[in-house]
């Protein structure tokens, strides 16, 4: 039973990590918490669902389509909600409030377009197959999620550290002004980062939609708050932190249900947010922010 619960925790955790990757990327570069990331994740799931159900497209093409659509949504988000804020010296709370507004807008837009019903991916798309490894039972989708989230982590880390664009992103992360001075077109880089983070949200949406087989407009909020907890647990803007933080939260939640009282499950994620911020604001893997002066 313990091993099966551990696997449950890991699979749940990997979905959280996938969502958290998008959060961390935006936080790392723009020092902004994008509260609308949950809704981008939900839109990705719906686009994937639409492609599979109506255009009868194979699941991997649907994933690519969802990533593209979410990236586009991310670009719109950046242009309309975030860019105007950078033009004038606004408090660092403005992007938080603005993205909260975007998240409400998107949630209700989705309710209008897709309707409140929870819809499911057709049975054939990848989700049915099950493997039995000794006492543990895990579905193919969960393995794919584990694989993709770890894969994305390594690709992202490599891409950010080795490629030219990756370095440009990291300089912008240090300070937008200096990056500008060094001839980096920071607006383009920021746009690219938000698009990339949203694409990550899109693929997370399709994969999570496949594994839980219930896609509905209000799923963005709860997954968004969980992703936020992982962001803080792992350390603001730290990619490995997001990965491991997601797994830790997944396991913590599953073990709270398995061995503690299942009704306190939601308190785990929010409890972590508060504890980490009090004891170790930079999170488990983050680096210490500058002193007060």
């Amino acid at each position, binding site marked *: 039973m313990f091993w099966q619960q551990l696997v449950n925790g890991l699979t749940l955790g990997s979905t959280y990590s996938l969502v958290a990757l998008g959060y961390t990327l935006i936080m790392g570069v723009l020092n902004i918490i994008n509260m609308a990331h949950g809704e981008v994740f939900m839109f990705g799931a719906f686009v994937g669902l639409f492609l599979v159900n109506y255009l009868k497209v194979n699941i991997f093409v649907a994933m690519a389509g969802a990533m593209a659509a979410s990236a586009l949504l991310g670009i719109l988000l950046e242009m309309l909600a975030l860019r105007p804020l950078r033009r004038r010296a606004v408090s660092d709370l403005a992007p938080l409030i603005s993205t909260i*507004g975007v998240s*409400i807008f998107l949630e*209700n837009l989705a*309710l209008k377009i897709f309707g409140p019903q929870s819809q499911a991916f057709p049975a054939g798309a990848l989700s049915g197959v099950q493997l039995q490894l000794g006492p543990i039972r895990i579905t193919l989708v969960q393995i794919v999620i584990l694989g993709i989230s770890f894969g994305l982590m390594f690709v992202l880390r490599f891409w950010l550290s080795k490629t030219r664009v990756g370095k440009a992103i990291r300089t912008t992360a240090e300070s937008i002004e200096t990056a500008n001075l060094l001839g980096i077109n920071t607006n383009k880089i920021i746009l690219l980062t938000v698009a990339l983070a949203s694409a990550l949200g899109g693929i997370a949406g399709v994969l999570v939609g496949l594994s839980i087989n219930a896609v509905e407009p209000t799923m963005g909020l709860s997954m968004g708050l969980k992703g936020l907890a992982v962001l803080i647990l792992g350390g603001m803007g730290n990619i490995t932190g997001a990965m491991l933080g997601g797994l830790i939260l997944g396991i913590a939640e599953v073990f709270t249900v398995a061995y503690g009282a299942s009704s306190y499950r939601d308190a785990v994620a929010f*409890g972590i*947010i*508060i504890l980490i911020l009090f004891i170790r*604001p930079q999170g488990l893997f983050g680096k210490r922010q500058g002193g007060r002066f």
Partner: protein
Amino acid sequence: MDIILNQYYLQIVIFVLVNAILGVSIYMTLSTGQLSLGNAGFMSIGAYTCAILTVKAGFPVYLAIPIGGAAASFISLIIGYPALRLTGIYLAIATLGFGEVVRVIILNLKITNGALGISGIPTLGTKISKMLSSFGLSRFGGLTAQQTSNLLVLVVLIFILAFLVFFCTRLNRSRVGRAFASIKADESAAEAMGINTTYYKLLAFALGAFIAGMAGGLSAHLTFFIGPKDFAYHRTVEILSFAVLGGSDLIIGPIVGALLLTMLPELLRSASEYRLMIYGALMVIMMAFRPQGLISKETVRFWKRKLGRRINQ
């Protein structure tokens, strides 16, 4: 005169006033530059404490509501002390987490009746009219019982809101108000000028929680029933949108914000499914084009100068 008595409009004005009081609660913490998203959590603490006292322990309403506020304020001190090392988005997210933890705790406590919530809360109106009839002035003119109780509630709420405005205006012109404003402008410089910033940030936090708790108690007695669902994430965002739309520089800002945003659903009753979309869009537009909100110091100064010039022409 008939408009005033129509219960539909009376009820809306009552909800506008409760939301205005909530607007003041978020203004209070914002006056020291701290954005707290925990107001819905403090509101639920106030509402439940007050409802349990009146329904289960038979306390009189005018006693239970301040006690609800005090309970919220007490818990805000416990959560506030460690939270105050955080600033900006970190404090906002920590207080958001606090609000959700309170909701989960309320869901699981026996005394709060979990998801079933507390029903049969005596309305403020009937309580007040019962109190008044004990003084012998039970019926005014030809009004029905329903209308008298609603009018009485309206008067009580207007009085509470007026007192809060008076409280904040006086506070802003006093030593404590200056301390709040200096912390909002530059916390380290304020500390270097001899202000114990932790104490004053905690004071603002506790005052905000007290007001939110009282608003919780009041709203419990206006909707006869409270459940954990009423104080979730969306309620926090609603209170935030009052300050964002109205502006958080001046006390009148969140009040006007609460007024407009509570009226919006009634004016848009026909297109009600678009309403939340408009809320969301409104927040984005406000942040992009007028982050200081509708009413800020400049607006007041601008009108003063404009009106000033016309008066002495």
